[in-house]
């Protein structure tokens, strides 16, 4: 078969070799041993979920304990009101009852000048609003939260009862109770409550606009790609830059700008949990460093683009997002509601123009047709509800279904953003 010409060619080319760049081995190694990176991310998410779950369980235990206290107090109140058969208001501030002190209680003090003894309101003492204050001549407090035996003697003045009544009203209406309530004594001294008072119920919000703006959003792809050192495109054939030139490093186009707007609706399940859904329109944009030349135009099939020196292409995508989220409200801190939220988002890509970076090679990109039209993502976030029912949230979003597939590798969306949400209608219970 081989003639002299072929033999000559074969002889000349038999030892022809080209030293490959170190990046190629790194890519091969990454393709052959991908588990380590994946498992790292898995454990990171696992730890995060564990941390949030632990916090929620802890909060639930606190709630259960508080609820037990509250119910006991409620029964005691009902019993007392029945026994008294006297309306408990400012005008009827008289001596109501005297109860004996138990051995477990600190010794009660009597106010001899006034000569009036009354029982203090059980529901306040059992909730530990009044700490023991042995230095106060006018107020004797006996508290035991452990055995629920609460008997107290003190002078009752209209002021004391009125203030206590206010607290009772607040309590009954299930509003937020500030932790620094003070009760005035007849001598004008005050007793400060420095105890922890959990919130009663979250302020419900129903329909509200959500406006999510910002430079804070970060869009990344997992697994990401790292830029190799500058490459030299000098082969001079199709696909190369002519004249030959050394490229500069590209960068992962992970920082972008986005704008979301939509309507969400939230349904309260109980005092801690609520469900949130709705629809938002999202516009995302980032600047993709590419090169000064592409070998194929945008809009064709899945060609890649061999680009040279740094240049910039604007990537953009328009999507509709429908979230299904669960919010968990923790107890109020400084009169603000804090909550965690998590759940699933469904995302529909309307249209886009987004270069996909080839993680195996620097400065090579694939066009947007690879990106899937439908995606499922999961979200974790932290929110804060202000008094005017404006919500501010930060969230991390991670793709469940791949954003695109390339070289038998699935690439997932990762997204970090900060949002502000404004209410349309405020429907908190009064």
């Amino acid at each position, binding site marked *: 078969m*081989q003639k002299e010409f072929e033999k000559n060619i074969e002889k000349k*080319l038999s030892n022809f*070799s*080209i030293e490959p760049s170190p990046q190629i081995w790194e890519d*091969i190694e990454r393709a*052959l041993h991908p588990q380590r990176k994946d498992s790292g991310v898995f454990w990171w998410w696992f730890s995060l979920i564990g941390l949030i779950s632990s916090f929620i369980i802890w909060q639930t235990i606190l709630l259960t304990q508080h609820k037990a206290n509250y119910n006991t107090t409620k029964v005691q109140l009902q019993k007392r009101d029945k026994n008294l058969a006297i309306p408990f208001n400012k005008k009827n501030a008289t001596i109501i009852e005297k109860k004996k002190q138990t051995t477990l209680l600190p010794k009660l003090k009597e106010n001899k000048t006034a000569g009036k003894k009354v029982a203090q309101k059980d529901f306040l003492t059992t909730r530990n609003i009044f700490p023991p204050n042995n230095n106060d001549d006018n107020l004797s407090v006996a508290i035991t939260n452990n055995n629920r035996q609460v008997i107290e003697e003190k002078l009752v003045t209209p002021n004391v009862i009125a203030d206590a009544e206010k607290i009772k009203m607040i309590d009954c209406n299930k509003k937020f109770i500030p932790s620094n309530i003070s009760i005035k004594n007849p001598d004008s001294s005050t007793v400060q409550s420095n105890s922890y008072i959990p919130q009663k119920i979250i302020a419900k919000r129903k329909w509200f606009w959500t406006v999510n703006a910002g430079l804070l959003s970060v869009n990344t792809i997992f697994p990401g790609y790292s830029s190799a050192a500058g490459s030299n495109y000098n082969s001079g054939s199709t*696909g190369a830059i002519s004249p030959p030139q050394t490229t500069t490093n590209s960068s992962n186009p992970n920082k972008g700008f986005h704008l979301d707007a939509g309507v969400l609706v939230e349904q309260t399940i109980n005092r801690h949990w609520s469900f949130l859904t709705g629809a938002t329109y999202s516009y995302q944009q980032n600047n993709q460093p590419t090169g000064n030349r592409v070998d194929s135009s945008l809009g064709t099939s899945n060609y890649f683009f061999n680009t040279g020196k740094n240049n910039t292409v604007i990537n953009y995508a328009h999507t509709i997002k429908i979230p299904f989220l669960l919010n968990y409200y923790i107890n109020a801190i400084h009169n603000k509601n804090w909550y965690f939220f998590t759940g699933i988002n469904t995302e529909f890509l309307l249209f886009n123009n987004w270069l996909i970076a080839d993680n195996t090679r620097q400065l090579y990109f694939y066009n947007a047709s690879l990106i899937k039209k439908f995606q499922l993502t999961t979200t974790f976030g932290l929110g804060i509800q202000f008094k005017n029912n404006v919500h501010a949230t930060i969230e991390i979003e991670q793709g469940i279904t791949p954003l695109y597939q390339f070289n038998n590798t699935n690439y997932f969306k990762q997204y970090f953003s900060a949002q502000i949400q404004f209410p349309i209608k405020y429907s908190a219970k009064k």
Partner: protein
Amino acid sequence: MNKEDLIKKCIARKKDAQYLLYQQYAAQMLGLCYRYTKSLEDAEDVLQEGFIKVFTNIHQYKNEGELGGWIRRIMINTAITYINKHKRYKKEMINDDVLLHAVSEDNPEIKLEVQDIIETIRQLPGNYQIVFNLIAIEGYKYNEVCDLLKQNINTIRSQYSRARAMLIQDLKNNEVLNIKNNAKGI
């Protein structure tokens, strides 16, 4: 580390053994891939895909032939798959009904450097480039190329003859150009 140990460790997915094997054959295989593709970046792609196939299928290698020959065949198959997959290569495929060059039976002596010969081979139209590489350099027979490219034997014969003629003509032209450039002191 001898060859058997190296293969055993590669089967056990030991990174250091895989790297040793890669180092041993990468440069040679990149030279091969370069002959089949139109750019160094494409050649590197083929090399990468090829070595991934080598490491994932190395358990299928039987110590009957040269390991280098086995890897070489995988690289050639990967290059052909790569070329068939990418549309820009398909655009360069030439319809055989068009007469490009007269078939030549010349056996000229090649005076050009290796790099120039390779670049000239790479300037051939896509299918001609593959057929010429397979038959002239790898030493494949026509029927083997037929099976590999899934084409008629007459088409392969025709493509090879045309490729050969084109290459000889191009080499002659380049050689003349080189001689002229040397004379001008370029």
